């Protein structure tokens, strides 16, 4: 038994506000019954604490499974700042893609301008063709002149060699004739001397 005006269980369970707690503490030294009641509550608590917590037989680890992880879009959707950032990023990306994929403006040329452009192209093609032909002809003529000059030089050299050979033959013939004449003259002179 205890004094009904004091909440001993509330005091024991530390649920009393400071003022009521102080009143109980002031009352206890003077009341044997309340002290015994408080001692029984403490004994009950001590007995209850012999019932210890048991270890969990198996760790709860299912949350490490990937299937319980929220998808990236779920995490994004659940975060307001991230969602705002993602929206801004998507808007920027959309503008960027639109700017690069938009077809370039096509300006339709008039008929007069087209004819003028065609004439200019034709003139340019003709000019470049004439130049190419002239260059090709000049190159061919140069090659022919060089070949002719080479042939003429070779013919002149051959003629000179032949002339030198002929002169040498004439010189040798003349020397032979002069020797024959000397022999004839000496033979005639010997016959005259012997006669």
């Amino acid at each position, binding site marked *: 038994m205890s004094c009904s005006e004091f909440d001993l*269980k*509330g005091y024991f*369970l530390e*649920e009393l506000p400071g003022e009521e707690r102080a009143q109980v503490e002031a009352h206890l030294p003077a009341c044997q019954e309340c002290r015994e009641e408080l*001692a*029984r*509550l403490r*004994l*009950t*608590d001590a*007995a*209850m604490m*012999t*019932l*210890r*917590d*048991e*270890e*969990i*037989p*198996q*760790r*709860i*680890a*299912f*949350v*490490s499974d990937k299937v*319980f*992880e*929220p998808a990236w879009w*779920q*995490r994004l959707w*659940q*975060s307001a700042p991230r969602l705002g950032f993602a929206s801004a990023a998507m808007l920027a990306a959309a503008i960027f893609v639109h700017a690069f994929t938009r077809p370039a403006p096509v300006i339709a040329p008039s008929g007069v301008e087209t004819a003028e452009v065609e004439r200019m192209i034709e003139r340019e093609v003709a000019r470049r063709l004439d130049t190419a032909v002239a260059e090709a002809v000049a190159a061919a003529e140069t090659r022919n002149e060089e070949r002719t000059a080479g042939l003429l030089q070779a013919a002149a050299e051959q003629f000179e060699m032949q002339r030198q050979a002929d002169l040498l033959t004439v010189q040798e013939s003349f020397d032979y004739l002069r020797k024959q004449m000397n022999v004839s003259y000496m033979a005639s002179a010997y016959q005259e001397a012997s006669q």
Partner: protein
Amino acid sequence: MLQSRDGDVEAYNHLVSRWEKRVYNYLLRLVRDPEDSLDLSQDVFLKAYQSLRRLEDPARFSAWLFRIAHNEAFSLLRKRRPETELADQAPPSPPAAKMLPVETSLAVASALNRLSEDQREAVILKMYQGFKFEEIAGILECPVSTVKSRVYTALDLLKETLAPIETRGDA
């Protein structure tokens, strides 16, 4: 806690490892079956993970977690209520003053079993889990006065078994 709320599984694993033993023992003392307690613990943490983003005040995580555990436990107890009522009729244990420590813990378990489910849960949340009356009222979704009444009644019943008044000749 905040990382877990943003879907960080590793952070939530830390949270689970910190609370799983307390939740398991709360459920074990309430439903009194290890396998059921483990299964319920799994369910509690799964449901907590799935609804963690709805927890507005992270400081109230423990009360919120035990609220989920309470719902899971009483969902099971309602299914097997006839069996529980039979178990509640077990004979009272002898006084704790004459028992060895092991016997005392058995007597405590027996004394807890003789309490009603509401009383047992209230006293478990108060004595073993250390919640304040207001927090227990939040977990059980009932007035503080109801919590107080359940705890006080449970304490009186436990006290009769575990710390009986010594009469002349007891020693």
